[in-house]
């Protein structure tokens, strides 16, 4: 026993060093797990969230002009969409009018008020790490939950990973952990992903069979297979096409629809049907 105490006193520094390193390794290994982030030691906690909030309150003034422009272009897009649904020329298309008249009892039309949009301000952002996170100034007090989808005015941004009462962190699409399910114009499904060391303005899609015809400028959308993103959100636009010689597949480079360098405001999409769907899919997995 005496020798043991002497041993500990002799090598106390080394033992402390190894102990701290082991704590670090455990922490790193735990956060690599996808669905459970580390809530306490993330930028969603009170102190870090508060500091980022103060900082962005000052810095945001310098980006107001650009912000204004992006909101205007989003407004134009939404107005066009609205016009497409509301202004049906009743003189030319008689069938449409009749359909409206006939379906007067609305009971036959099932409406799903499936999506609710929350708005949030980006208070911290990164693009240079291997997995990039965004901190937003909305949290569980405002109805934000884990794994909700986050989009900007122009396209997909990421999914919520950590939530505190007033802040939340978002794992952006620029990560190496989780690809998004993506769809080409003709309906081919694949994954859009980001590579380690890639620039923040490129995403990739691999393993597209060669017989699928892709052209530069095609849009890539999210699919309904994902349990996080609603379908038909714009992910990016095809920028370059390469053919991989070894397995004769096409390798696409996309330019993402969102400019990750100057995100200022984002929308968080609350999908009311997702919990039911996840529960069902998990129960199927458990049975196996």
């Amino acid at each position, binding site marked *: 026993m005496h020798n043991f105490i002497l041993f500990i006193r002799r090598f106390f*520094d080394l033992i402390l060093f190894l102990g*701290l390193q082991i704590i670090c390794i455990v922490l790193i290994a735990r956060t690599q797990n996808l669905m459970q982030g580390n809530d306490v030691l993330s930028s969603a906690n009170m102190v870090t969230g508060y500091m980022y909030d103060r900082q962005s309150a000052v810095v945001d003034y310098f980006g107001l002009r650009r912000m204004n422009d992006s909101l205007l272009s989003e407004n134009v897009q939404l107005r066009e969409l609205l016009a497409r649904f509301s202004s049906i020329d009743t003189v030319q298309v008689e069938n449409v009018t009749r359909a409206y008249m006939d379906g007067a009892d609305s009971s036959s039309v099932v409406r799903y008020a499936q999506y609710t949009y929350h708005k949030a301000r980006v208070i911290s952002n990164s693009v240079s790490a291997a997995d990039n996170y965004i901190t937003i100034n909305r949290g569980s007090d405002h109805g934000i939950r884990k794994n909700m989808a986050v989009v900007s005015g122009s396209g997909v941004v990421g999914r919520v990973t950590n939530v505190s009462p007033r802040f939340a962190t978002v794992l952006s699409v620029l990560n190496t952990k989780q690809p998004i399910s993506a769809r080409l114009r003709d309906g081919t499904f694949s994954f859009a992903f980001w590579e380690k060391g890639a620039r923040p303005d490129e995403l990739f899609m691999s393993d597209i069979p060669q017989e699928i015809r892709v052209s530069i400028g095609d849009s890539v959308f999210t699919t309904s297979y994902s349990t996080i993103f609603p379908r038909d959100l714009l992910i990016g636009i095809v920028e370059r096409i390469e053919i991989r010689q070894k397995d004769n597949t096409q390798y696409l480079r996309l330019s993402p629809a969102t400019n990750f360098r100057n995100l200022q405001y984002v929308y968080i999409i609350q999908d009311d049907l997702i919990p039911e769907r996840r529960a069902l899919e998990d129960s199927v997995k458990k049975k196996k």
Partner: protein
Amino acid sequence: MSDYLKNFLRFCLIIAIQVLILNKIPLRWWSQPLGFPLFIPMIYPLFILLLPFCTPVWLLLILGFIAGITVDSFMNTVGMHAMATVLIAYLRTNVLNALLQKNQEEYAGQSPGVKNMGWFPFLTYSFFLILLHHTVYFTIELWSLTNIGYLLLKILASTVTTMLFVITYLLLFTKQSARP
């Protein structure tokens, strides 16, 4: 001003510079000339480098862990910065022993700095430990050797930029001796 207060204030200042200014550099469009990989200069190891000579190793280790975890929670990389910082905190004493002319006990109440070590030994000391810190950090972050060129480029670019910031810090915060 007591040593504790001085080091605490330095900790707050360095972490604030790191988190609020340096971490935002890659967000600017000019941060990437000619497709150069994005990198962040990390000056917070300077806090460990500038602690007084007489700090015992166990305290260095714990302070290194605290500094690392603080930066980690700002950057959402739980454990990675802490691991690299604990490593350099452990090796600090050995590197200092190799570089100093006298025994460490003779520098009672002083901190490593340009004045008592001279420019060249101090820069060697900080360059070596910062290079080690960056190597460990970026290796853990990427955790693959498939694009080793990218990894090396990122380590080198980041170390050089960090050293520029360290030199700036030293020039700003070293008291000049009063001219006769």
